[in-house]
């Protein structure tokens, strides 16, 4: 019986890494364009981050420091599972501190901390095609991208306004990259869209099941689609984080009891912990703050 338990560094064989690396380089050269690649079955299911994992596995080296988040948190089960996977197959150093990471693999959030030039953000993408729910056929959507024909998307946004009085896309909000390709930023809340624009960091996107890789180089224009009279707006929360008092960050709703009690806390757990470590406190942690002042 073959040795079941011996794997190449970072799990993927070198031929697969080369194939993905070539795709990454072309993706960087054509910002926002979805490069097809021959995705491999990974030890976690399709839909659970295999695209992000394959991208990370192809770029990670022994000197990297890896952070993995899901919904902004390091401790959600799938983030824990993926981080453990890379510790096992790459013996890579891991961290929960955004500032210390060189590679950040993420699902559904962009960290609140502004990213630096030595960092790569790897997004897990379920459906890479922004037009998919308007047109199920890949043969058709590929043509639309080829001809820069995005009328279908504009019609859909316009119809939203007609029906709902506003554009009703709240996550996976489509963007135009470097003035050419319309791209799906992955199901990050539209709140995070502005962070993609002119970032110091390289952003890579991996969709394993759909077999696509795309990229936004640093310092690249990323513009959320909108209309002059209905400009793009991010979500705003009524109150700051109940734990650390942060404003202008994305908050999670936590249900406290069965009487409708709820509070809002930072989705980005590292950001919240960091603030609290530096003495910031929100109303949950310092209810007497105001009284003392």
């Amino acid at each position, binding site marked *: 019986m073959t040795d079941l338990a011996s794997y190449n560094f970072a799990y993927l064989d070198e*031929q697969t890494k080369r194939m993905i690396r070539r795709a990454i380089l072309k993706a960087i050269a*054509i910002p926002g364009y979805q490069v097809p690649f021959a995705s491999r079955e990974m030890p976690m299911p399709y839909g659970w981050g295999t695209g992000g994992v394959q991208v990370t596995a192809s*770029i990670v080296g*022994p000197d990297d420091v890896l952070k993995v988040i899901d919904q902004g948190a390091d401790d959600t089960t799938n983030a824990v599972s993926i981080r453990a996977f890379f510790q096992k197959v790459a013996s890579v150093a891991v961290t929960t501190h955004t500032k210390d990471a060189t590679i950040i693999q993420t699902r559904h959030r962009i960290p609140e901390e502004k990213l630096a030039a030595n960092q790569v953000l790897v997004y897990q993408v379920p459906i890479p095609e922004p037009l998919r729910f308007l047109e199920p056929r890949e043969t058709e959507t590929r043509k639309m991208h080829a001809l820069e024909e995005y009328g279908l998307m504009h019609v859909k946004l316009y119809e939203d306004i007609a029906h709902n009085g506003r554009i009703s896309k709240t996550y996976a909000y489509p963007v135009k990259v470097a003035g050419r390709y319309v791209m799906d930023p992955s199901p990050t809340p539209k709140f995070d869209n502005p962070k993609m624009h002119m970032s110091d960091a390289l952003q890579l996107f991996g969709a394993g099941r759909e077999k696509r890789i795309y990229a936004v180089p640093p310092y690249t224009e990323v513009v959320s689609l909108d209309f002059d009279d209905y400009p793009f707006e991010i979500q705003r929360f009524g109150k700051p984080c109940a734990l650390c008092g942060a404003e202008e960050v994305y908050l999670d709703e936590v249900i406290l009891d069965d009487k409708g009690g709820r509070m809002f806390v930072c989705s980005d757990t590292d950001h919240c912990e960091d603030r609290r470590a530096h003495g910031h406190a929100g109303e949950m942690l310092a209810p007497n703050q105001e009284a003392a002042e």
Partner: protein
Amino acid sequence: MSLKTEVPKNDVLAGGFAEPVFHAQSVFKLMMDAMARPGTIQTVAPDALPPAPLGVASGAIALTLCDHDMPVWLSSGLAKSAVPQWLGFHTGAPVTPEKAEARFAFVEAGTPVSSFGLFAAGTQEYPDRSTTVVIELADIEGGRKLALMGPGIKTVTDIAPLGLPDTFLRLWTENRALFPRGIDIVLTSGSRFICLPRTTKITATEM
């Protein structure tokens, strides 16, 4: 550059990565940074020693990215040297005389380039299926200053490669007109290189 008719064995069998897994990763990381930040000079630690006249950086790039799925085009001096066998042995990459079939092309220093048009530029639906052209130069600095702008560059990045073909700027403008199709270029000199993805706008700053 010498023509070889009898290929010494050690030219072909030697000169690959000592630690393929980690060296390929480190060279790829340099390539990725270089494509993401066009005009930044990257230096390959000289582990790969390809046969002359292929340079160290070009050889490292070949070892990192080429394999049997990727036909390679070589300019004539390279094609007549030990390079085809070296490539075959270390990467399995087939050498092709057809520029349009090649996914990677290596051009030795001093080769006049009349057109990029014969290389694969991809299709409108699959612009990624294009050749990456690696051009060896006399030096990565010391030539005429060029200003680069575009994705990956915050404002402007200057480069001054020495030994670019005279036709280069014109050919690059023609390449850019094809966007999203087009080739992508790596300029190498010894163990250093710069990447120019097709999105980069190049202007000469001095006449």
